[in-house]
């Protein structure tokens, strides 16, 4: 067989092998935003993070099934007072935030979901709460509670585990996201965006002092004491119901030196 013909056959074979993979690829797109408030080296802080998901065409993505958020190395959990109490998942599911001790609150936020029927670009779930949950595996556990009223009436409690990480990242928040059906027997809703906090901003804890119940603001996790070149890195990986994945990164800029 002439050499050029063999090369042509090989090229066609390679193209045939690659083409289906390219056709399968679902170009989900993710953006991630993170911030520290206050943003000072070593200061106790509130971490805010938000993400948006869409297909390459700007449409609602497939239903989200998993999210792993990677948090920069040096974020210090040593002296945080967040999660001085534990909320039981059953109580959270049954009674919402009212079923949890005030001292279990970790943060709060909101989400936008897309339902595969009706009109409208997205529907806000105005209430997402993060509370400290029991830790069956010995790791910090965050319970998220989403209270959807319209058009999807669903109260969801699901947990995320804080695991140690390596390299530029010190820990990661691994979340298994449950599927939510739009209507009984109908397709699952898509999460378009989520914004939430982990930290003391907007939280009030209580403690007994000389027999009196005193309100206080809990101490948050601390901003690292050194800022790496390029800022504090955050990264997130997203997995979808159809088996596709996408990821996003961002960085919180280094705070300006204080004079």
């Amino acid at each position, binding site marked *: 067989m002439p050499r050029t013909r063999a090369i042509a056959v090989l090229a066609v074979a390679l193209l045939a092998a690659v083409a289906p993979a390219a056709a399968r690829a679902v170009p989900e797109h993710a953006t991630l935003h993170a911030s520290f408030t206050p943003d000072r080296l070593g200061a106790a802080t509130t971490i805010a993070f938000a993400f948006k998901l869409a297909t390459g065409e700007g449409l609602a993505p497939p239903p989200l099934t998993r999210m792993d958020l990677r948090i920069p190395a040096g974020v210090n959990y040593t002296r945080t*007072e967040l*999660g001085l109490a534990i909320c039981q998942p059953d109580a959270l599911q049954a009674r919402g935030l009212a079923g949890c001790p005030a001292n279990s609150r970790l943060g709060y936020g909101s989400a936008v979901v897309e339902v595969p029927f009706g009109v409208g670009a997205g529907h806000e779930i105005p209430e997402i709460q993060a509370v400290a949950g029991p830790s069956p595996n010995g790791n910090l556990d965050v319970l998220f509670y989403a209270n959807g009223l319209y058009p999807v009436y669903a109260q969801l409690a699901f947990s995320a585990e804080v695991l*140690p990480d390596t390299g530029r990242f010190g820990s990661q928040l691994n979340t298994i996201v449950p599927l939510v059906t739009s209507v009984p027997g109908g397709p699952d809703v898509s999460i378009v965006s989520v914004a939430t906090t982990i930290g003391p901003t907007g939280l009030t804890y209580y*403690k007994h002092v000389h027999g009196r119940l005193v309100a206080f603001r809990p101490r948050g996790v601390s901003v690292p004491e050194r800022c790496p070149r390029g800022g504090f890195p955050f990264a997130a990986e997203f997995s979808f119901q159809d088996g596709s994945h996408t990821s996003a990164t961002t960085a919180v800029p280094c705070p300006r030196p204080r004079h």
Partner: protein
Amino acid sequence: MLKDPRGQAREPIVRPLLALAVVLLLCAQADVSHAANARVARTFSLNDYGRLHLTSHRGFTLNEAGSASGTISGTIYIHLTVASTNRVTAEVNIYPHGGSLTGYASASYRPAGAVATFSGTMAVLRGTGTYRHARASGLSFSGTIQRSNDAVTVHVSGRMSA
């Protein structure tokens, strides 16, 4: 000088024997001296509790001081470092009457709720004074951290030689 039967001169046999005797004597003396200095390592069961309060903190390390009671009593200092979200390491110094002990511990860390707990092992690698020969490994090391004020309790137990 002795002469052999053939009339040739030969090394006197007394001198090497004497030298050998001196060497043997010196060796024997050294052995006796070593035996006098040698000590039989005493192994005993350690079971100690410590209650500590936060004195300072830096980065991921809590510096704690308090008192230890049990088999060995005295002032106890712990530098407890939260190495990751689920692991702590510690340097433990105990100052009983007449000496000191230094140990290093590594433990899993479970920060759930108001009281975080840790559990792992500790080795005693140094001592001074009465405890200068203290050594141990695989000691059980466990305790709690009261998250509202960072007060620590610690329990160390196992076999130690001193």
